[in-house]
């Protein structure tokens, strides 16, 4: 972490714009702004901080579009002023009347608009999608998010480590393990301590169980959005088996609050390893024919192949993480590219494809499920003995940053602990920040009816984004 001046700040923005490095996070606090940058030469994340006593700073998005929504959010949350920001409409702050929002103007003959949300037809999170269509074809999608803004960064300010860990684990419930992991590792980095080895390995088991459960759910749901409901039924059974195994081994179906700063809150019970092994066996037996079915069903392939193509160049510019990036040629996975325990001691492959369509995003998930099963087996075989949690006495001021690879992409957590051992500031950046804008690009030229497929194949988080 380094302090930079205005000239260096602008230079970093230029380097991002020219593709020398990737914007990894951009956030603020009163009087100071921070950017996280992924350097391509030596894969590592650097945090640069710029003091801005008058709360104004040179806009990054003036030269690098992926920063636009992040800077709009900084204005809304902290009153910071990115000078040169190309789009100054509010983003996370909807003001007193949520329906009053200036959508971008659309002009042209025979165009019509379809307004969807914030309350959607299915059991999903709220957000608004404004489609402009020419007949069946989408010519523009504009998203409006922020409906589930809960003031997480506000609540973090002054929270105890326990309170903050619980909040972090509820930033996006489907990634609760990944968030708890990133938060715990950021605290540990700030305090200069390490969780015991066995804790790191148990964290890995939980993270992979979470990944498998979510990928199974997505695989079924994507097929269901193409009206192939048998896949949802079978994947639903497998997902439920994962959650029940998690509840039996760790005491909570989604494994909330199991990863804490200093280690893990629960150990593996005596029959835990055997339960997980039998789960792995069952998934292997049941999942293979489902994949064959997916691959052999022409009507399903007809919907997913060639649909919602995300161009690799866009994925690279926006630093798209997870299956969105890896289905469009961006070879980045925080577990390997940055590396953290226990993955630095495990063997696994990171699947990457180039097509960038719904089908590619499905296949990334299929391959990752297989990798995660193998990872859990390795972890169970070589699980170190010993304690699973060390006591923490937080003292500050100190800062820490950590990454964790959630099922939908990298989660970044940066935090500062104050002299009293409480959280002074904590920023949690979901992978969705860099994926949502790309969905707008991927849907262009597709038919309206394929939007659910495209949307589900991205599966961005609303809550993780809205904070």
């Amino acid at each position, binding site marked *: 972490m380094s302090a930079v001046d205005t000239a260096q700040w602008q230079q970093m923005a230029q380097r991002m714009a020219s593709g020398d490095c990737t914007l990894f996070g951009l956030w603020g606090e009163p009087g100071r702004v921070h950017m996280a940058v992924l350097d391509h030469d030596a894969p590592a994340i650097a945090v640069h901080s710029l003091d801005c006593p008058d709360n104004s700073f040179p806009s990054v998005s003036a030269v690098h579009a992926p920063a636009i929504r992040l800077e709009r959010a900084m204005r809304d949350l902290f009153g910071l002023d990115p000078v040169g920001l190309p789009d100054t409409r509010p983003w996370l702050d909807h003001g007193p009347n949520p329906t009053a929002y200036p959508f971008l103007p659309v002009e042209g003959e025979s165009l019509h608009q379809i307004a969807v949300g914030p309350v959607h037809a299915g059991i999903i999170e709220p957000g608004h999608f404004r489609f402009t269509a020419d007949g069946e074809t989408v010519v523009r999608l504009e998203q409006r998010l922020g409906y589930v803004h809960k003031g997480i960064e506000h609540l973090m300010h002054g929270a105890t480590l326990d309170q903050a860990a619980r909040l972090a684990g509820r*930033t996006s419930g489907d990634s609760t393990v990944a968030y708890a992991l990133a938060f715990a590792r950021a605290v540990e980095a700030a305090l200069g301590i390490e969780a015991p080895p066995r804790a790191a390995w148990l964290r890995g088991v939980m993270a992979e169980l979470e990944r498998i459960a979510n990928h199974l759910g997505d695989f079924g749901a994507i097929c269901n959005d193409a009206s192939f409901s048998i896949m949802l039924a079978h994947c639903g059974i497998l997902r439920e088996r994962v959650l029940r195994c998690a509840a039996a081994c760790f005491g909570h179906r989604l494994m909330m609050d199991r990863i804490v700063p200093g280690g893990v809150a629960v150990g593996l019970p005596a029959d835990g390893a055997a339960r997980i092994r039998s789960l792995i066996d069952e998934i292997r037996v049941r999942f293979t*024919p489902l994949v*064959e079915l997916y691959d052999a069903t022409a009507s399903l392939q007809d919907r997913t192949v060639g649909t919602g193509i995300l161009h690799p160049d866009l994925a690279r510019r926006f630093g798209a993480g997870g299956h969105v990036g890896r289905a469009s040629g961006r070879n980045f996975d925080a577990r390997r590219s940055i590396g953290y325990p226990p993955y630095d001691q495990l063997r696994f492959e990171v699947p990457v494809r180039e097509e960038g369509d719904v089908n590619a995003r499905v296949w990334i998930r299929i391959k990752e499920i297989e990798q995660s099963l193998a990872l859990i087996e390795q972890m169970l075989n070589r699980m170190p003995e010993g304690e699973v949690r060390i006591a923490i006495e937080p003292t500050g001021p100190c800062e820490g940053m950590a990454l964790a690879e959630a099922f939908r992409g990298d989660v970044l957590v940066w935090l500062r602990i104050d002299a009293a051992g409480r959280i002074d500031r904590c920023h949690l950046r979901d992978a969705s920040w860099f994926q949502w804008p790309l969905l707008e690009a991927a849907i262009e030229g597709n038919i309206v009816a394929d939007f659910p497929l495209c949307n589900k194949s991205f599966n961005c988080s609303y809550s993780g984004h809205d904070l």
Partner: protein
Amino acid sequence: MTLKTLLQGLRPPVTEPVPALDDPELAALAAKLDRTAQRRLGRSLSIREVDAGSCNGCELEIHALNNAFYDLERFGLRFVASPRHADVLMVTGPVTKHMRQALERTWRATPDPKWVVAVGDCAAGTGVFAGSPACIGAVAEVVPVDLVIRGCPPTPTQLLQGLLALLQS
């Protein structure tokens, strides 16, 4: 071959037996409900889910109600796409300021008689988001609530027990 293997996955049947309403709060709620309305609806309820600020953990477990283990539809309960088709609103989240209007409009769009079920610790009383200026708080502060199902998130079994309480007189 594939089909045969798939069908084997369903044997023995995975569907859970009907959960007992062991919670006295739920039994009391069931007794209190308007019997006339219950007779009119019979054993069929249509549910509209509204995320009013949830972290999406509750949504995952509500989704699970549709899987083969819980098989919600065997009870005549089903999720519908519009509040106009709904008898029950299942609301999650520590109602955010930004979702207040949408929740109120959804409630108004739901025809009478209707019930509101607040799902999860946030919907019950703001949960870990208590004190946030961006949240209004419990669902009951925005629309009248008939049943609260606590949990972070509540398990599908707890959700099922709550919904069955609505059906029993």
